[in-house]
């Protein structure tokens, strides 16, 4: 019975996402290729001082991305430090410097890791002026970078890959903003709040006192999911009834997370002139997505472990209105994209259930991944896959008519090394440096034994991959974790972006080589299998030892 219900909700998600694939993917392609500017965009370009007709080299595009993100980082940092002087601060004080840095890095880096409890730390002005703005623009940056890479494949013998300011503006105003307005209204209809009232105390039925929170939650919630950001307005994130009131809103939030990432392969196919290439990328994403989501749901429904067995089900940290299957679906989607929102507490998942969110992030969030970052992550793996295929048959590899030479393969290899290095080094340093280890063990870790190790591993995995979910028992609001995780977020976000844009520049400069009998076809099931295999094997070889110390040791 429960199995059928779980299958039915997964099927509904698949149907909705499939229905969106062509219209939304084609619309995105139109947005990023149309020669026409909207009137409001022309006004904006004039105010900002950019020429929408000019094109940028990859180096110039990188400079724009980094400068824009640096300004965002400083602005969010300053807003938090100045909180006490802002209106609607709810009487909350300025945020401490290390926490303000961590939060600024986290929201600019599309991660939304939260070392703090929002309802006790941030007033409404920081939430809307700082965090919500970054929820939009960090997502638009991810899409812009992905589109720039696709242009690299699509163009030939050119020095330019697009205009960052145009890509940023169009992604924000034509895609994220209208869908967010629509999504927010739907969420309000489901019961998500949208008001500016301060929390009010009421006398409960039993004669106690309860604080009823207020806040512009729905506007924040829609872009939190659509932009695969994930930062909750409240500490409990999408488990909080004011963020996610009922079964259907939870499914709607799942669809918001998946809509853009699963449609971008269509955009890619259209822009490179072959829808079959888009379907191949979609198939690889879909295969991993389906396998991981089904396995997590089966494992968690089984309810292994001392506490779940004693209670009769793995309901610790889960809401009655969702139950196991709607919680595992949400958790799986949230970590297979780069969202990191939760509607139940991953720290209280069964041991092997907690393994899957970690694995999903370690895969590099490519199935379907964050908005933009999922597509460029998968395309980098496709470059690796054709290289592996080329080695097998002894030919120079090509992808979409572009030669994958030493420069391309170096950039792709560096890309897949960045996040594992950050995850493993961050986790190792947390236990290797004596002073840090004391802080981590005495202050940060919440659960005893190997589960405590898993909390730290999860944190660095989440930060470096820009996810933002947590084994939330971990107290991350310490100088070490705020700083180390903040640095991991920034490096895990912007080093890969620089490498991807360099790859885009290198590909755009090449001419196209015609396909021959020796070219590996990249739109057939054989290539989908190769791509999926490369993704899984690279992850497994990198992370198996450290997983054996954490969730595998606890669960087996």
């Amino acid at each position, binding site marked *: 019975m429960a199995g059928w*219900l779980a299958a039915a909700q997964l099927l509904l998600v698949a149907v909705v996402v499939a229905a969106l694939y062509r219209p939304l993917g084609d619309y995105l392609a139109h947005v990023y290729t149309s020669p026409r500017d909207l009137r409001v965009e022309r006004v904006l370009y004039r105010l*900002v*001082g*950019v*020429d929408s007709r*000019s094109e940028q080299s990859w180096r110039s595009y990188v400079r724009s991305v980094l*400068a*824009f993100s*640096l300004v965002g980082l400083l*602005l969010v940092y300053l807003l938090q430090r100045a909180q006490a002087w802002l209106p609607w601060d709810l009487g909350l004080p300025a945020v401490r410097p290390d926490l303000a840095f961590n939060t600024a890095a986290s929201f600019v880096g599309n991660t939304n890791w939260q070392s703090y409890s929002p*309802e*006790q730390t941030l007033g409404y002005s920081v939430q809307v002026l700082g965090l919500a*703005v970054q929820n939009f623009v960090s997502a638009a940056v991810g899409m812009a970078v992905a589109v720039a890479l696709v242009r690299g494949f699509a163009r030939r013998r050119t020095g330019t890959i697009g205009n960052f300011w145009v890509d940023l503006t169009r992604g*924000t105003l034509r895609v994220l*903003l209208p869908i*967010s*307005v629509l999504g927010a209204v739907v969420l*309000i*209809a489901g*019961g998500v*709040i*949208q*008001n500016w009232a301060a929390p009010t105390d*009421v*006398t*409960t*039925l*039993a004669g*106690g006192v309860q*604080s*009823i*929170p207020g806040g*512009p939650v*729905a506007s924040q919630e829609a872009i939190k999911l659509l932009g695969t950001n994930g930062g909750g307005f*409240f500490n*409990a994130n999408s*488990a909080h009834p004011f963020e996610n009131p*009922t*079964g259907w809103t939870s499914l709607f939030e799942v669809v918001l997370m998946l809509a853009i990432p699963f449609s971008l392969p269509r955009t890619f196919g259209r822009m490179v002139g072959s829808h079959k290439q888009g379907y191949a990328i979609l198939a690889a994403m879909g295969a991993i997505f389906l396998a991981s989501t089904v396995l997590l749901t089966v494992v968690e429904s089984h309810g292994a472990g001392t*506490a779940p067995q*004693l*209670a*009769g089900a793995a*309901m*610790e*940290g889960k*809401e*009655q209105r969702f139950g196991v299957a*709607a*919680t595992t679906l949400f958790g799986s989607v949230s970590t297979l994209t780069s969202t990191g929102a939760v509607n139940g*507490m991953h*720290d*209280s998942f069964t*041991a092997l259930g*907690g393994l899957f969110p970690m694995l999903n992030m370690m895969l590099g969030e490519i199935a379907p991944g964050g908005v933009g970052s999922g597509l460029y992550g998968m395309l980098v793996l496709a470059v690796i896959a054709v290289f592996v295929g080329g080695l097998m048959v002894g030919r120079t590899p090509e992808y979409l008519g572009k030669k994958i030479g030493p420069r391309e393969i170096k950039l792709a290899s560096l890309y897949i090394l960045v996040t594992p290095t950050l995850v493993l080094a961050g986790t190792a340093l947390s236990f290797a440096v004596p002073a840090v280890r004391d802080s981590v063990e005495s202050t940060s870790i*919440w*659960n005893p034994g190997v589960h405590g190790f898993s909390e730290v591993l999860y944190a660095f995995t989440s930060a470096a991959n820009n996810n933002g979910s947590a*084994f939330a*028992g971990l107290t991350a609001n310490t100088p070490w974790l705020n700083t180390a995780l903040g640095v991991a977020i920034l490096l895990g976000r912007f080093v890969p972006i620089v490498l991807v844009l360099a790859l885009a520049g290198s590909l755009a400069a090449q001419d196209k080589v015609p396909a021959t009998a020796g070219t590996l076809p990249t739109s057939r099931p054989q290539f989908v299998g190769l791509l999926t295999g490369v993704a899984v094997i690279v992850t497994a070889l990198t992370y198996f030892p450290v997983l054996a110390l954490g969730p595998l040791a*606890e669960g087996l």
Partner: protein
Amino acid sequence: MSSPRTTWSHLVVSLRAMLVLTVILGVAYPLLVTGLGRLLPARADGSLVTGADGAVVGSSLLGQSFTDADGAALPRYFQSRPSAAGDGYDGAASSGSNLGPENPDLVAAIEDRRDAVAALEGVDPAAVPADALTASGSGLDPQISPEYADLQVPRVAAERGLPEDEVRGLVAAATTGPDLGFLGQAGVNVLELNLALDRLAG
């Protein structure tokens, strides 16, 4: 007017872009959504519910404790799930327990809760369902399972001098989900149920 070339001009353009976008996304967007939310004021304001005297007693979306000042269960009310939000159902401190599956504190808590529920309801400890033994993710779960509600019907009916069937009818009226028959699972809204009981008592 051309695209920025130097690092400095990149920063100036970035700052201008961020300020313009902050006005659109950080001011206009939340205000627009607030305006649209006025079409559904009851929802946008938090689904507040009022008691017999017309005063707001809570939100139908947020669970509450039905205990006395010492934390002992009030037997005339249906009881909510255990909560890790502050001292229990603290609306300013939403949180799960985040205790792991092998954590001895969680194992002990489940055993204590099972004994307490079994004693309160006068039932076999093996009959206590999982949601009565575990804290939710938010600490503000407004619902309990239909099984846990069913377990509490005889006690509440006896305390209030009502026929069990009448109380069961109120439980059924407070039961919702799963949405569309398969999204999430069924649950009983505890605050709405207890409000209905109080209304019955006049």
